[in-house]
Every structure is written in structure tokens, then in C-alpha cells.
């Protein structure tokens, strides 16, 4: 894990003066891999494909696994088709937690060189190109760039779960312009946005908004995060 030094940022949604404070936190350098996840289900049989409760994961949970302990794809490719409940449990078992959406977005603003690359054309184009490239989920973790914080693969392999993934867009309502949390379609999407150029972020929010906690998806994985305080307590374990 590496430390992401906290700060203030302006998310895609919200008035221009609504800056968000992000406290310093720790984040995994790499997404959780197939191998990591296999170990987890072996230690926690309740989360095996055949045992998992429908309440916590829908039918696409580990869809490409041929049985409870055999994944398909590269061992060091990011695990996918995992529900939010499962991802949350995984992190808890490691003494960690899922990153909040603001933490994730804050860490993912960085390119190789700077903390906030959102105004840089090549950074945005890179992300958009990835969103359009098919089948990137079966690539090894660490195969994209190392960002300012030392974190890999925030863009380029899979989407990632966050703790409060659906807090911006819940219903998918279209052209109501009263409720700013639910206007991510068509014209109203533009009304609610603070930065019209940030198409890449639009797509992330749209994706998160389409998910439910029991859903899982071929192009969705996760990584864990941790509070700084907790790290100090658990320092001996490392």
C-alpha cells in the first residue's frame, strides 16, 4: 500500500464552490487479482461461487470460473465479476476497506507526474481510449502506468468498486432537473456537471450508477484502502 496525501478537490458533480476534503489514506498499489481472490474464497468458503447467497451476489458472480476454485484468465489479471458485498468482505478480511468514491476519484486524478491531470488532454484521451478498448480485463495488473502516488491500473484494466459507489446516481432518472443526484442523462447531465470537458468521469459515474451492490460485471474489479490511523495500529503486521 502507499499513502495518498489528502487534499481538496472539486468532483464532477456539485457547485463550483463545493470542494471536497479528502483525508490522507492508504491505497493498494494494484487491483486484487484472480490468485488473491482464489485464496480468499478458499479461506472463506461462504464466498465460493456455489455457496454465495443470492442476496449478496447475483448469477454473474465469478461467471467465468469453471468451478469454485478454478478461474479462467491470467492468474495476475484483476479479479472481476465480483459483487460489492464480496469486495467489501474481501477488504475487511485483510483489515482494510473499500476506498470511498472521493478517495478513489482523488487518487485517480493523477497521471505519472502530477496530482491532478484532469485538464491535460492526453490524460483524458488515454482514459477514453481505454473505455472504448474491448476486453482489457484479462491483462496483468501493473501493466498500465504508475501514477504520481505510485498506484497502478486505476485506468486501463477494469472499473473498480468503491464504498459509496451509487451515492451520486441512484435511480437513473433522465430529465428531472430538480434533483441533481439523478440527472445523468441527456441535457440534464450537462446542467449538473461542474466540468463539461470531463467526459471520462461522466462515464465512470454512469457506470457506477448502473450497478447494484449484488451485481457483478466482467469489466469490474476492486482494490482496497485503509485509514492512516488504522495503519499505525497495525504496523507490526506489515
Amino acid at each position, binding site marked *: 500500500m502507499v499513502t495518498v496525501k489528502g487534499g481538496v478537490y472539486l468532483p464532477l458533480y456539485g457547485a463550483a464552490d463545493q470542494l471536497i476534503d479528502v483525508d490522507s489514506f492508504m491505497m493498494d498499489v494494484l487491483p486484487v487479482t484472480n490468485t488473491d481472490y482464489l485464496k480468499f474464497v478458499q479461506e472463506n468458503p461462504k464466498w465460493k461461487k456455489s455457496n454465495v447467497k443470492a442476496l449478496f451476489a447475483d448469477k454473474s458472480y465469478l461467471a467465468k470460473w469453471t468451478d469454485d476454485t478454478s478461474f479462467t484468465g491470467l492468474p495476475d489479471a484483476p479479479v472481476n465479476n465480483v459483487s460489492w458485498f464480496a469486495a467489501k468482505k474481501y477488504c475487511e478480511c485483510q483489515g482494510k476497506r473499500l476506498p470511498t468514491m472521493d478517495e478513489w476519484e482523488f487518487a485517480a486524478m493523477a497521471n505519472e507526474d502530477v496530482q491532478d491531470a484532469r485538464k491535460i488532454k492526453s490524460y483524458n484521451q488515454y482514459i477514453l481510449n481505454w*473505455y472504448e478498448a474491448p476486453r482489457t480485463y484479462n491483462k496483468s495488473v501493473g501493466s498500465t502506468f504508475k501514477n504520481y502516488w505510485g498506484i497502478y491500473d486505476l485506468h486501463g484494466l477494469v472499473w473498480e468498486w468503491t464504498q459509496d459507489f451509487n451515492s451520486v446516481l441512484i435511480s437513473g432518472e433522465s430529465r428531472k432537473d430538480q434533483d441533481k443526484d439523478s440527472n445523468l442523462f441527456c441535457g440534464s447531465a450537462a446542467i449538473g456537471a461542474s466540468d463539461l470537458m470531463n467526459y471520462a468521469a461522466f462515464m465512470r459515474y454512469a457506470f457506477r450508477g448502473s450497478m447494484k451492490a449484488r*451485481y457483478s460485471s466482467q469489466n469490474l474489479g476492486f482494490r482496497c484502502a485503509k485509514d492512516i490511523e488504522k495503519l499505525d495500529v497495525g504496523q507490526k503486521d506489515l
Partner: protein
Amino acid sequence: MNLRIKKNFVTKMLLGLSTIAFLSGCVNDQSDKTYDDAVDIPTNQEMVAELTSPPFVPTPVGKRMAKKLIVDLEIQEREGEMVGGVKYVYWTFGGTVPGSFIRTRVGDELEFHLKNHPDNKLPHNIDLHAVNGPGGGAESSFVAPGHEKVFSFKVLNPGLYVYHCATAPVGMHIANGMYGLILVEPEGGLEPVDREYYVMQGEFYTEGGYGDRGMQAFDMQKAINENPDYVVFNGHVGALTGDNAMTAKVGETVRLFVGNGGPSLISSFHVIGEIFDKVHVEGGDLLNHNVQTTLIPASGSAIVEFKVDTPGSFILVDHSMFRAFNKGALAMLNVEGEENKKVFTGEIHDGIYLPEGSVIQSMPSLDRKKAKEEVKALSFEEKMKFGKDKYMATCVACHQGNGQGIAGAFPPLAKSDYLNADVDRAIDIVLHGKTGEITVNGEKYNSVMTAQALSDEEVSNVLTYVYNSWGNSKKEVTPQMVEAVRNR
């Protein structure tokens, strides 16, 4: 329903007529009863909607009664070819751009199943302009990858409507191909015609320029500037030309369901050599007659009808002309049959006319800076392939798919004595254009070819392709030969 009860009553009386009663089940499917409000039209029976890929359309509704119609549409993000050698990741409704054609009638109740393929990266939804309801269904249909959403609506207004994805960023979803047409026929159906086709314009914004090889990503800045590299009918260059051309016979009436997916441009839709007998303006009830060019707004439509009176190739264009000749907005309708001299005589006289100040026209040169990123052909086979791609992208509009040209207008390249006689002259014409009278295979031509903005490599590929096709002299043209002509 009342009709059915009466018939059942009859069958009770005459047992032996049960088969006739069964047959009349078909008749029972038709009704003359009219309703003041389309909401009140009852539906009977359930039917799975026939969906078709462009340029085809499903069977007309005819006189059938309103039904519950199940529409099953799958969203696929998939790689396709924009023009020879140029790849693009399309986002599609049903695997094609434009998406599957949906055909309904007023009063139908649609149960819409929108499926998002598990391999897809993005959530999508559908906004059908035929829907009376918030978001045109966008809210109810917002679907994550690997999921299916079901929603239903009743179609109340007849007309030809666009549907499109309305997930943020909407412009990008549309620019990648997420649009199609849904037709709502009036009670009793549209008047039958001989041929019906589905044509939809859309523009694409790619990182590289027109014809740049390889996988081309969506270019956000060009999209915001509304400056597309491709303006095409049915998703890619050549979707409706050559072997893919639409066909008809002399004397037939052709109906085109024309849409414009945009995302930004407005189409000046025109068929060269035809006059629209009838246009359903903007896809609605308003009928206009004898129209040359009809305007189709972004995310709008028109139904055009015309009787084809003479044989030949009729070219469909967006008459914003550079889109047609430089960005791909060309489609073709081939009409076969007997010539009709009363309607069109063909050429009867060719005189000389040379106004003052006529000069060779030229295309803007690209400063020859392209060389740095150009993919070079490494073998003869590759040269032929690249050359063919370039031919299909640049030359085919005039010289045609098999180099046959167009009699009286564009000289043939196939078995061409003029071409085979002098390679340097051919190179020079590609580089600098040609105007004035020439004789090719015994026929006189007097028209203008513009200078082409191609690199030495591209000229050598395309001419090698031309010289090694259609019975020509099999010369290989090298970039050095082109350079020599360019520098002389």
C-alpha cells in the same frame, strides 16, 4: 373482441364450418373500428417483433390489429471497419449501425427487453422518440453490462422516429453509433410500395484523419468542434455502394426510411437523378410533393418515396457536397430495366465550351507531413491491399468499383489504353489533376479530375492496385517513381 364472439356464435350453429371459423381467425385480426384516442386501442395477442439489420426493414404491418409486441434488443460494443484498413469500436443496438429497425403500428403495446452484453464496458439505455413518457424510456432502460431491463409503452403517434442511447456522455454514445429507427404505422398501414429500405446518416470523429489506417479512437475535441472525419450512411464508408447497393426495377416505387443519427450535423438528403414524389416531412404526417432535397435534422427522419422511371445508378448523398465526396456520405440505388427515351435520352450532343479562366482545381495539400506516421506497405500483397483500400476510399466515387467508370463522364481505368500507355502521365494526373479532352478506349471524355492530396507512398499503392487489376498491364509503381514525377 366483439367480432370474435359473433363468429363463435355462428360456429355453434354449424358444426361443419369449424374450419372456416378457424380460417376467419385471420380476418378477425383486422378491424375497421376506429378510435378517437390511440390510448383506447385494444391489443389482442402477443407477437415477437421482427427486427432487421439495415438496409432492410421488417414486413409491413398491413391491416393487422394492435398487439402486444415483444422487442428484444441486445447492445454490443464491437470492432468494425470504417473504410478499408480503418478500424473503429462501434457501440451498437443489435450489432449494426444504425441499430435494428423496429416496425410497429399505432396502438401496439411494446414490451421492450434491452440487454447489455456482459463483455461490454459501459452501461447504456435507450431513448425512443416514439415514447410518450419521461426520458423516452431512458430512465427505465438504464442497464448495467451483463443485465437486461424490461419496460413497456404504448405507441400512440404514427411516424418515423429515432431511438438513441441517452447515457452520459450522450454525445459520445451517439457518435459511436448508438441510434436507429422505429416506425409507427398508422391504422391500416402505410400504402404498399414495391421496395422499402432503411438508410441512416451519422458522422464519426476519429483521432486520425479520413482513411488513416489502424484502430482509430473517438476524438472528443473534434466532436465538440463538430468537425467529423467521416459522414456516412449506415455506419461505414461503402455500406451501400458496389455489391452492397440497394436495387430496384424500372417502374417500381421505392420508399426510403431515412434517419439522421447525428450527433451534430443536419443532412441535406438528396438522390442524384431522382425527384421525391412524396416526402413525409420530418417523418410525420405532413406530406410534401416533388421535392429535390429534404432536410433531416440531427435525430430526425423523413420518409421519401419515388417511382424509378429509368435504369441506372442513382446516388444518394448528403448534398453538403464535400461530405459526399470526401467524408463518405454516398449510397447507391441500382435500377435495372428498359430505357425510357421519353424520360431521359442520354447524351445527344457534345460540343466544345471553354470559358476564360478555367484552371485545374486542386485539393489542399497536406504539407506532406504525413510521412512520419504513415504505415508503409512491406510487400507487393500489402501494397495491393493498401492500394485497394485507398481506391475504395478515394477513387471509387467516380471510377467505380471495378474501374469501369461512368460512360460519358468518368473514363474507365479497366483495360484502359490511355492508362497503360504512360505510367508517368498517370502519376502526374493523380498528383496534379487533369482537365480537358482525352480519348480512352476510343471514347472521348472531357471533364475534370482534381489533384489528389496523397503521399508518394499512397499514390504508388493506389496506382499499383489499378495497374494490377481489371486487365491492366501489371506495372508496379514505386514511391520513387512518384517522387520523380512530383519533383520534375
